[in-house]
């Protein structure tokens, strides 16, 4: 054993080394306070030699490994600094050790159980286990003793000394039977959740931290054993309750004890149900739904027992971070109140139950619709729920383990464009079969990626969409190339158009139409999610509203084109039916001729029913686009009025401070803001000069802009009302999302109303044109709650 002196845990003060910064003081040798662990025999003491060699380094210089860069040192922990050194934190807390074997009163045990539950919910909302569940010293002790056998997971000082509890000593029963069973239950629920959460749709550190710091969360202990321990504890409490009730002593203490026992029973039952529900994550949906419904009932019974708990904060400590395999500095405990924990659990239960509805799909398109609605929810669903949606829906890269992704792609193309059924039934020997297969394979990847993206949190979703859009653009090029080949033309024949002046007809081109549609949809999401996530500065709002309006216009034209094609196809089909009927009649009449359209050679037409269904859906879609466009116009006029009034800086004006001119220009800002779309071939980004020309405010007055804003916003509101009255059959792929779609439309109406109010407020202020930067006492805030996520409302008020 080394005899060198150690100073204990306290770091030396700066004063002691103030005299000579290069002379590192060392305590005198020969006087031991804390025994130093021995070193391996192959190690040699180089303390003095090293000190001598270090003196040769010039001040300010560093001797280091060639490949080491200073950026690597950013994450390095500084030892003996309380803000960085978890080990020091652990050492300092050692004299305040909490005795996990000690008996505790029922109220204190109740509090520990509630706090642990709150910590578990904190973990689900983003806190690391080291800041939540693992801060409980009972959890730490149980995991430290655990050697693979459940009986070893107790609160004793070491694994061989299990504390015994006696029925005569109630407090020992509360700790070593009830609390122990509950602690093991918490560990198991964390393990089951964690296994589910390990999927690519959840961003580690952004959404949830699944690191366990090399601790085994009893992964191989069967659920039945944990539940059996919980059941034993429940039975013991029930017996105790019966015995206590028989005693004819009625006082507050007795009443509290009985209340605590009831509290224990509810919490233990809840824990059993949670374990079973999490364990049934891959089982039949009905089973999980039943278990989740049971949890809802128990939550209600839980509320009545909260007030009995008595706090025992010493049972939790962040000093345990110094005992974990963790290269992070100390982080504070993530607190959550019991009420918030209950709310989080309800979110978890309701979200998981909702996800199971996806099994009620009518068509594959319903699943697509459900994912799109799921991605739009606010607040974003918990990471577990998002993981559950993806893992339930995609098993071995097939939808519900049954339908290949290709089926979903074909269903989506068919829903939108109603191509000839023969398109996807091309014979192997056909010259373009291989090219079509290749296209569909690429489309599967892009489409599946879209589902995966929709399970992310909103900010990450937008970022991933910016990446995905390039894949869809590339897919569009492939699809156009494919459909322009001679062999594919038979599936996309030239259809006669109404305009007689045009000699050329119009081709359906279903594949590229579908890809373009999805690409435009992604672009619209990217643009408008920027408003939802507060990405744009106020001065950028006019630009993004203008660009959003432009893309909506492109989408509207595209959808109108598809509608036209379907209309022509439907007319031709009807004419062709008439021809068949007439031709039979004419054969009977011997020679009467009739006019008919020539059916497409080699291609069967789609059914009338599918065409009608799609046309109804496209009509609803165009209504939605119309509403969005009107709102964009209204917002643009409103923003323009605020720019003229000097409330918001003009995007196209030069920077206010002339000295910053060389660093940025409006054109550069324009390009930077539209950067996600710069690599896309079609639609091309309009030039900055075009934008400037179209948004020139020189001939406008504030009042006329506000009038325009009001008119267009009112028009948007009316269109929303009409759109809301669409029948369910007019909404394709909406079987699972009727209620949420209706809710979204109501929020759109509220955005219209809110904006109208803001316009009225601005009008009443009777503002005069002025430059931005001149003093005004106006305050502009962006309100998101209760409004449509894509159209938050600007609130203008006077600064007090």
């Amino acid at each position: 054993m080394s005899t060198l002196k150690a100073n204990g845990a306290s770091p030396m003060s700066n004063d002691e080394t103030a005299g000579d910064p290069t002379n590192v003081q060392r305590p005198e040798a020969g006087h031991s306070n804390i025994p130093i662990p021995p070193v391996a025999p192959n190690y040699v003491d180089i303390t003095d030699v090293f000190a001598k060699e270090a003196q040769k380094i010039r001040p300010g210089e560093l001797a280091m490994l060639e490949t080491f860069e200073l950026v690597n040192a950013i994450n390095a922990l500084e030892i003996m600094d309380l803000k960085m050194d978890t080990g020091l934190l652990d050492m300092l807390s050692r004299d305040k050790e909490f005795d996990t074997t000690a008996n505790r009163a029922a109220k204190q045990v109740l509090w520990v159980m509630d706090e642990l539950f709150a910590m578990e919910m904190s973990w689900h909302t983003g806190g690391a286990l080291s800041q939540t569940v693992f801060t409980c010293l009972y959890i730490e002790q149980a995991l430290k003793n655990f050697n693979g056998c459940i009986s070893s997971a107790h609160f004793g000082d070491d694994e061989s000394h299990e504390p015994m509890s006696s029925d005569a000593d109630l407090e020992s029963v509360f700790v070593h039977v009830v609390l122990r069973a509950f602690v093991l239950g918490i560990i198991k629920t964390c393990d089951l959740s964690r296994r589910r959460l390990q999927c690519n749709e959840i961003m580690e550190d952004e959404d949830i931290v699944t690191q366990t710091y090399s601790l085994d969360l009893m992964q191989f202990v069967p659920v039945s054993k944990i539940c059996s321990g919980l059941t034993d504890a429940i039975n013991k409490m029930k017996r105790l309750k019966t015995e206590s009730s028989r005693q004819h002593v009625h006082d507050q203490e007795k009443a509290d004890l009985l209340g605590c026992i009831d509290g224990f029973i509810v919490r233990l039952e809840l824990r059993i149900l949670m374990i079973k529900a999490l364990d049934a994550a891959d089982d039949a949906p009905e089973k999980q739904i039943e278990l989740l419904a049971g949890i809802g009932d128990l939550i209600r019974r839980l509320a009545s027992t909260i007030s009995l708990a008595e706090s025992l904060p010493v049972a939790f400590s962040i000093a345990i971070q110094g005992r974990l395999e963790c290269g992070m500095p100390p982080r504070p405990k993530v607190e959550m109140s019991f009420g918030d924990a209950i709310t989080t659990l309800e979110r978890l239960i309701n979200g998981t139950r909702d996800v199971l509805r996806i099994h009620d799909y009518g068509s594959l398109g319903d699943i697509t619709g459900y994912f799109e609605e799921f991605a739009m929810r606010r607040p974003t669903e918990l990471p577990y729920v998002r993981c559950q949606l993806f893992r339930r829906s995609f098993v071995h890269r097939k939808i519900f383990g049954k339908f290949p992704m290709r089926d979903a792609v074909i269903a989506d193309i068919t829903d939108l464009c109603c191509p000839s059924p023969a398109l996807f039934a091309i014979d192997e020997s056909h010259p373009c079969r291989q090219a079509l297969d290749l296209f569909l394979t690429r489309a599967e990847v892009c489409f599946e990626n879209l589902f995966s993206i929709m399970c992310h949190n909103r900010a990450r979703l937008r970022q991933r969409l910016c990446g995905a859009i390039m894949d869809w653009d590339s897919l569009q090029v492939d699809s156009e190339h494919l459909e322009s080949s001679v062999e594919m033309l038979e599936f996309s024949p030239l259809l006669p158009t109404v305009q007689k002046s045009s000699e050329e007809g119009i081709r359906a081109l279903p594949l590229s139409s579908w890809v373009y549609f999805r690409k435009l949809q992604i672009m619209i999401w990217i643009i408008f999610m920027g408003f939802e996530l507060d990405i744009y500065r106020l001065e950028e709002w006019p630009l993004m509203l203008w660009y959003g309006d432009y893309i909506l216009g492109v989408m509207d034209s595209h959808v109108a084109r598809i509608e036209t094609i379907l209309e022509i196809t439907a007319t031709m089909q009807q004419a062709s039916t008439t021809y068949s009927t007439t031709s039979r009649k004419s054969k009977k009449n011997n020679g009467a001729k009739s006019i008919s359209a020539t059916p497409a050679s080699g291609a069967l037409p789609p059914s009338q029913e599918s065409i009608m269904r799609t046309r109804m859906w496209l009509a609803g879609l165009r209504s939605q686009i119309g509403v969005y466009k009107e709102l964009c116009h209204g917002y643009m006029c409103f923003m323009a009025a605020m720019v003229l009034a000097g409330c918001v800086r003009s995007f196209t004006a030069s920077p206010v401070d002339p000295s910053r001119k060389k660093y940025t220009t409006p054109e550069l800002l324009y390009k930077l803001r539209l950067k996600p779309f710069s690599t896309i071939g079609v639609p091309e980004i309009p030039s900055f000069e075009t934008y400037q020309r179209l948004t020139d405010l020189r001939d406008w007055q504030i009042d006329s802009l506000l009038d325009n804003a009001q008119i267009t916003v009112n028009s948007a509101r009316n269109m929303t009302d009409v759109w809301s009255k669409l029948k369910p059959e007019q909404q394709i792929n909406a079987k699972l999302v009727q209620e949420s779609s209706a809710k979204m439309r109501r929020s759109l109406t509220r955005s219209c109303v809110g904006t109208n109010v803001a316009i009225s407020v601005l009008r009443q202020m009777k503002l005069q044109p002025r430059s931005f930067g001149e003093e005004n006492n106006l305050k502009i805030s962006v309100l998101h709650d209760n409004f449509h996520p894509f159209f938050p409302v600007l609130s203008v008020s006077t600064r007090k």
Partner: protein
Amino acid sequence: MSTSTSNSLLDPELDGGGISQYISVPFIVTTTDGRQFHGPLIGTDREQNIILGDATEKLPIGFKSRRNEGFRYVGMIVVPGKYILRIDADRRALQSNSLNRRRHPQISTPDVL
């Protein structure tokens, strides 16, 4: 373990390597509170502030052991010179470094900023 004052590193054959001979050598740095940090030396300066990479921490004797017999992974750490009580180096790695220098004198020495 005895506090060895004999130092084979002062062996004339091995001496003259300077601070560079210690870079990448496994170290055990004992701090003033009795903890030990095991890891290869990444860098140091005149004040003997030591950077260890992939370090593990060991508690002093007498403290209740942690799960893995007292060892805990801490990653890259900086140990300020004023808190260092003792430094031990892996003898074999040191000798290997020295021999390599003698065999390949043109091998570049670690950077000194």
